[in-house]
């Protein structure tokens, strides 16, 4: 039995919570359309019509090249990480070879390891091999951290749902590779999509790694461009609001379109055994 009162209370409380979540973001949208350069920073909805702010910020903050750099780095990371995670998760889930559990344990450890702690040796090593200040210095570590989670995630799926299918395919004479590409990959599409969404969000938002690796070059990612712009215009809040929106909009779009995939990853993927 569900009392009507409870249902109304539920909607009221949830709407309040949603409002708190969205409030600052809605505020920034109004802010971003305000009069630029004004020190008074309170919202003026009636005059929130300065759509030119976005063009100005795009130009002045070098957001064009930054968004492009972010897209290049993030797409390579997403594609490569998914492609590496699927066969590795498959092998660890369903094949038997010496050292399998140990390798898996070491990979799992990588999910917990904070990039912040490894930033110093990563920078020194990249510089030694002259990889700093180019795309690879960001892409390679991002792929490394992504596959730690990716292998874990794909293994969890293959262990649960694929054993009998795989046995059937093997008995039918399919080799390991055919089993993966013809039987398992079509089955695992939703899991792979979840991985892709998570990788996209994590790596687009990443700030410290590109900050350290690309600081000696002209390259910058979108979050770097935002922070650089912010450092130059500390109190020009209308512009800063517009710059924030430019930085987050690709992730917001991906998230809203693929919300289910993302939520599933956060809900189920974080731990479990």
């Amino acid at each position, binding site marked *: 039995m569900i009392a009507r009162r409870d249902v109304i209370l539920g909607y009221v409380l949830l709407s309040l919570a949603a409002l708190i979540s969205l409030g600052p973001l809605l505020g920034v949208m109004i802010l971003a359309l305000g009069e630029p350069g004004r020190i008074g920073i309170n919202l003026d909805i009636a005059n929130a019509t300065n759509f030119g702010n976005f063009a100005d910020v795009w130009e002045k903050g070098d957001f064009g090249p930054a968004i492009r750099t972010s897209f290049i780095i993030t797409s390579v990371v997403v594609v490569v990480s998914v492609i590496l995670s699927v066969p590795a998760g498959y092998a660890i889930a*369903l094949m038997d070879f010496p050292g399998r559990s140990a390798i898996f344990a070491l990979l799992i450890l990588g999910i917990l390891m904070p990039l912040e702690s490894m930033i110093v040796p990563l920078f020194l090593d990249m510089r030694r091999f002259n990889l700093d200040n180019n795309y690879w210095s960001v892409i390679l570590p991002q792929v490394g951290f992504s596959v730690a989670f990716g292998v874990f995630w794909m293994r969890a799926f293959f262990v649960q749902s694929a054993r009998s299918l795989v046995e059937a395919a093997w008995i039918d004479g399919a080799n390991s590779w055919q089993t993966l590409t013809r039987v398992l990959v079509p089955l695992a599409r939703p899991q792979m999509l979840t991985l892709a969404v998570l990788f996209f969000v994590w790596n687009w938002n990443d700030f410290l790694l590109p900050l350290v690796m690309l600081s000696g070059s002209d390259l910058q990612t979108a979050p770097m461009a935002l922070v650089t712009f912010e450092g130059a215009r500390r109190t020009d809040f209308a512009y800063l609001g517009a710059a924030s929106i430019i930085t987050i909009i690709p992730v917001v779009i991906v998230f809203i379109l693929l919300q289910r995939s993302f939520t599933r990853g956060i809900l189920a993927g974080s731990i479990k055994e």
Partner: protein
Amino acid sequence: MSLAPVPVTAGGRRKSPPRSRAPGEPRRIGYLFILPAVLVYAGFVFAPFLHSIYLSFFEGNGITRMEFVGVANYVDIATNPVLRSAFIHALELIVFYSIIPIAIGLLLASVLHRSRIRGVAFYRTALFLPYVIAPTAIAVIWRWILAPRGPLNSFLEAVGLGALATPWLGDFTWALPSVGLVGTWVMFGLALALLLAGAQKIPLELYEAVRLDGGGLWTEFRAVTLPGLRYEIVVALVLTTTAALRNFDIIYVMTSGGPGNATVVPSYLVYQQAFKVAQIGAAAAMGTVLILAIVGVNLLITRMARGSS
């Protein structure tokens, strides 16, 4: 998903599915399947991890010769008040990133469990959004909200609480709680969405059973809600405490560790010591302690969850 065909051996007899072992004969070709992932992981996550531990026993700028100093860098972390305060701040941030959001989430979930809400998708999108967007952008947005003449202070003045208005991020007392509040805003929606999803799965009969036994709201919470949400609580704890301990972007943009050292945190000191003052060994030691802290906290959480099951 359709039913999987039952595996049959050549003799036509049913083969019992092996439970814990991988199917089929040992397949050494597995090494080839894991090789690319393992190589990238080993080269760009694991090797730097070992390298970081190694570097933590040296002193120097990373360019000229490094001098072996034993555990001096670790002794520094334990004794130098600024370095030590970074970890104390990280613990305080856990209160804001983890404890408060999960407490809010549990409170709301236990109130809402009976009203099986429709249209959850919209709420879930709204609640998850702060967790999804770039922390750098969140920091910029909140630096505006908390600015001396920003919306928060204007609001306080408008409702007659002008005396409370203060330059939040420039104040020694308020800077850390202010940064923590940003974490609360990011995490409460995540915690609420997770816990609500879990609470909707708890059978209503369990609550009725408590009612019939004469139990009140507190008994309902202790006996049904809390155990029913154990898994979701662990997920929320892992995600939020890890974020609290790793926190770099928000500190970098909002306060740079200031005013004074009021908001320095471990990851910010790693960056500062390595790339601003070129103390490579000290930075590596800080990073190593941070890893230990994160792994330790995660082990503690999963241990607690197992203990209470």
